[in-house]
């Protein structure tokens, strides 16, 4: 037990180097090929069984995918998502034990434009992936990330949650079986939009948007937000109700620690859990979250799962270039010496749940504009967040000299060194600033200060790292204005509204 004078003399436990024991621990017959976790050596056959079983168990345990439902598979070309594609494909095949019973489609988001990839490379990668998709026989669609510039602002409107109790799953299975379970093909035609069709000007706009974020951390965050919006929009417009993401255990463990560092602690359960219901009508699921990166890499190699490597923002970046990279290097290095690192983090993430503060059909104004999670920026008097706001105000007031607390518009101070010279009043005052005091030239697009009141804490940090919010896609800016007008209106007529309780 922990005592004051106790000394810890025992060295920390390390995984012993595996002695060269060549037999599979499961069947005791085959030659071991893979070491899973710490010390379990499996042969090829047992490994394949184990891998496939995990996928089915994950879907079966979390009964959210109903039979006959249309599910969109988000494939990035990387190892995990291609492995997920293969698992779904095998699960649908006729001779599978307990066939999977949903209708999948594939979406590939081509992010080459944001990363600065040359057009020929983008085309080549897209063609390789399209060959892979065609071989699976499933309908697929290729969407260049540039399309995010044209999204309608309805993407950010949380549609009402389709609540389904536990009984609904069994009923749905029953219905499906009774109706004869005709084959799982959708009649959807794949729309092929090759990257060559993307105009250069749009690629440039996208690059400027990504480039307006000054740190790599903010860029990664922004990119993943845009990607998610585009995925949800694609799912909605093609009629899919669920989206399967290919995040593996290692990636999610890294994401968990990164999220905490980025101030996304309140949204951890949704960011790393199996199902993510922040968009209401579209459910994001992560069936690969039980697989470590090593298992996926081995499976792909041993059983010929094709994947296409596409460079991302963080390819060849140094360890300290962004919080995401730093966390990744931390976790992988720790994992090398202590093989239970990733699974411990994973088990912790399984226990997280979001405290339900309000119903899911709450006002739009209660959700973050960018990440669509519930706002966590209610600055109560004794909270840490309130303390940060106060110290920010104080430091701005000192720097601005004899001007009032509400400092002049960011535009005029663009050249100033300090990044934080913006309208610094706390979340609750931004409404006033928006109503057009001389400081924020309000009539034009939203200033970063105005956006802050609509964002959760970590999205605020991301926006703060951007040199100009005007580059944000139109749908975000117009939705921001709409929400601000509504909240202003609500303030004005607030006293005349009847409460539900009356």
């Amino acid at each position, binding site marked *: 037990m922990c005592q004051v004078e106790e000394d810890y003399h025992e060295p920390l436990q390390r995984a012993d*180097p*595996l002695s*060269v*024991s*060549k037999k599979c621990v499961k069947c005791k017959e085959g*030659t*071991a*090929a*893979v*070491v899973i976790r710490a010390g379990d*050596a499996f042969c090829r056959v047992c490994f394949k069984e184990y891998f496939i079983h995990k996928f089915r168990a994950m879907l079966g345990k979390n009964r959210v995918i109903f039979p006959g439902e249309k599910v969109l598979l988000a494939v990035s070309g990387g*190892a995990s998502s291609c492995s997920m594609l293969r698992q779904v494909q095998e699960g649908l095949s006729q001779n599978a034990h307990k066939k999977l019973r949903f209708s999948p489609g594939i979406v590939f988001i081509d992010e080459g434009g944001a990363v600065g990839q040359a057009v020929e490379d983008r085309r080549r990668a897209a063609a390789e992936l399209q060959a892979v998709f065609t071989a699976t026989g499933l309908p697929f669609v290729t969407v260049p990330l540039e399309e995010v510039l044209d999204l309608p602002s309805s993407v950010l409107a949380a549609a009402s949650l389709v609540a389904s109790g536990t009984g609904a799953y069994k009923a749905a299975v029953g219905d499906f079986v009774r109706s004869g379970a005709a084959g799982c093909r959708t009649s959807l035609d794949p729309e092929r939009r090759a990257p060559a069709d993307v105009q250069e000007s749009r690629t440039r706009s996208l690059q400027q948007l990504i480039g307006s974020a000054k740190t790599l951390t903010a860029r990664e965050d922004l990119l993943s937000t845009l990607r998610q919006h585009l995925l949800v929009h694609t799912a909605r417009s093609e009629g899919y109700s669920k989206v399967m993401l290919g995040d593996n255990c*290692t990636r999610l463990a890294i994401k968990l620690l990164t999220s905490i560092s980025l101030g996304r602690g309140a949204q951890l359960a949704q960011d790393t859990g199996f199902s993510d219901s922040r968009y209401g009508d579209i459910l994001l699921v992560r069936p690969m979250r039980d697989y470590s*990166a*090593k298992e*996926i*890499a*081995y499976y792909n*190699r*041993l059983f010929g799962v094709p994947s296409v*490597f596409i*460079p*991302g923002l*963080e*390819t*060849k*970046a*140094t*360890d300290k270039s962004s919080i*995401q*990279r730093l966390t*990744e*290097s931390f976790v*992988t*290095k720790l*994992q*090398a010496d202590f093989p239970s690192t990733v699974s411990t983090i994973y088990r912790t993430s399984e226990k997280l749940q979001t405290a339900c503060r309000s119903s899911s059909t709450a006002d739009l104004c209660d959700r973050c504009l960018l990440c669509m999670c519930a706002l966590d920026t209610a600055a109560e008097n004794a909270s840490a967040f309130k303390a940060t706001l106060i110290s920010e105000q104080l430091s701005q007031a000192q720097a601005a000299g004899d001007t009032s607390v509400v400092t002049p518009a960011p535009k005029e101070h663009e050249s100033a060194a300090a990044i934080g010279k913006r309208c610094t009043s706390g979340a609750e005052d931004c409404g006033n600033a928006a109503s057009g005091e001389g400081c924020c030239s309000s009539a034009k697009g939203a200033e970063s200060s105005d956006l802050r009141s609509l964002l959760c804490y970590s999205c605020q940090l991301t926006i703060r790292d951007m040199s100009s919010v005007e580059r944000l896609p139109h749908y975000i800016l117009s939705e921001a204005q709409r929400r601000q007008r509504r909240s202003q209106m609500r303030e004005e007529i607030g006293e005349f509204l009847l409460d539900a309780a009356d």
Partner: protein
Amino acid sequence: MHLGGAELLFNGVKKHHVDLPSQSEPWDVKQLLVWIQRNLLRERPELFVQGDSVRPGILVLINDADWELMGELDYQLQDQDNVVFISTLHGG
């Protein structure tokens, strides 16, 4: 020698047929890594090797089996052995 994802550091070439110069003792994986770093690695050695071994996050398969089962760095290479390096990392 195959590279899964790590080929960015090797001029984009995925498959390398390697003839190691003969020497008195048999080659082991540790020496192979040194040889690779000297002769094949085109850029950013720190993204591939770390100290004596590969960077954490890079998997090594020898003849399609985990190198942990073969003795990791001390495994002695034999003729026609197939060594695969798979990167599971984001940044490289």
